[in-house]
């Protein structure tokens, strides 16, 4: 066995976050945080992130992956807890225990926003962004006036309030109305300026057009872009997409750790 999983409960002002720390048996060479995005559990589809954690541990990387606020074991966090703030909070908890190691972040989809928040508050040795949010069409959204959006919220709020009382909270975020998702291009550019960035997506993903459009801006900042042909990475719907995610991310981490050691 090349790694040991430690289940941990991380106390935060908004409640307890359930997480797993995967620790290599041998020397520690780096630390990594996996941010799975809203709605996904720390293990990922078909244990994708759990597998990745063990692959990275074999490289000597200590890996931290938490259930996002409101999800799975972190279901008891308070209503309206800010996912990005809690990610920073739990990252602080982890880094204070992991020791002085180079810190990497692996973010999936909406985890991009949390990663940028992390990069603003702590030094990252590298960031991997897998299948960033692709629903970025400011032109489309700007066609809806603020009054239109407000009227829609007022109209639907009684039903949403009733459903919340009856069925409980919506553990899945309302992606469609999230302003952060519309800012993917600027978040990616900001992240590339703050840390060495590697991003990948599938040829069948919505974000592929976005990354192609951003190619010059990102590569000018030293970022690397990988597009996996003939598959969809977002939501990891097939074994191939899961394997591609795990294998390519492991290769990126191996390169990053080796470069970090040489530096």
């Amino acid at each position, binding site marked *: 066995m090349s790694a040991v999983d430690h289940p941990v409960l991380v106390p935060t002002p908004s409640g307890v976050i359930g997480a797993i720390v995967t620790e290599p048996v041998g020397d520690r060479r780096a630390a990594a945080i996996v941010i799975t995005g809203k709605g996904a*559990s720390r293990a990922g589809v078909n244990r994708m992130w759990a597998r990745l954690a063990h692959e990275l541990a074999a490289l000597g990387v200590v890996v931290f992956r938490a259930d996002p606020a409101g999800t799975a074991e972190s279901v008891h966090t308070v209503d309206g807890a800010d996912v990005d703030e809690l990610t920073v909070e739990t990252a602080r908890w982890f880094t204070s225990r992991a020791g002085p190691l180079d810190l990497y972040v692996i973010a999936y989809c909406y985890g991009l926003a949390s990663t940028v928040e992390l990069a603003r508050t702590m030094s990252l040795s590298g960031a991997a962004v897998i299948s960033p949010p692709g629903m970025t069409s400011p032109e489309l959204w700007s066609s809806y006036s603020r009054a239109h959006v407000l009227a829609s919220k007022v109209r639907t709020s009684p039903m949403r309030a009733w*459903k919340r009382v009856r069925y409980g909270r919506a*553990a899945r975020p309302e992606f469609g109305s999230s302003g952060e998702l519309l800012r993917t291009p600027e978040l990616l550019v900001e992240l590339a300026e703050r840390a060495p960035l590697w991003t990948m997506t599938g040829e069948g993903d919505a974000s592929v057009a976005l990354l192609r459009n951003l190619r010059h801006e990102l590569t000018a900042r030293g970022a690397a872009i990988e597009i996996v042909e003939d598959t969809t990475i977002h939501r990891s719907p097939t074994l191939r997409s899961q394997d591609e995610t795990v294998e390519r991310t492991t290769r990126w981490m191996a390169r990053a750790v080796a470069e970090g050691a040489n530096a």
Partner: protein
Amino acid sequence: MLVCPSWGTEGRYSLEWCHGFARDVTSLGGRAVVVHWPGFEDSTGDPDDVSLASMIDACTDVAAHGWAMAGFGVGAAAVAVAAERLASPYLVLVEPQLDPGAHFAALARSYRRVSLGQVDASRWVFGAPVPDGLRDDDGASVREALAARTAHGGPTLVLRSRDGLASRPTDGVTLVEVAGNGRGDRYLDRLPLRRLGVKWLRRELRRTPPTS
């Protein structure tokens, strides 16, 4: 109490209910453990090797004689058998899928429909593997265990959505149905199913207090 999620994608989306119900159990003075099946979420193991028998073994490995049990979806099938083996005093089956073979066949049809027939759904449904050991199990052992349990009057609650696809219970269990088809998955707390489960447990604890 041992609280067990379902399998695959439904297993992932039943985790909120499981952790919520586990916390509810603590409000009754109990302790609860949420299990991750072998090859599922944080538990190691090859998901292709999972069968109903290995899920039952996981239950009996984690729980001790006399523990209460709750299971969601296919997890309900596993705990139904485990509860009989461990003489569980209270058993809660939520949206039970007591015939795993029929359940996964329905899921495969659904997966083929939403992908317009473009996928091979024989071993793989909505991003999660469906091992032979679950797909080929018709739930005979579950029916047998439930029949034995109801014969000696073991308190058993079945909670299901009235218009959903969960199994109809056998005679001798307490059936409570909630409105809807159980697919309002944006509301993952599934509070009606939690509240009614706790209400039943509280009543049963008063009626037949645990012996130890």
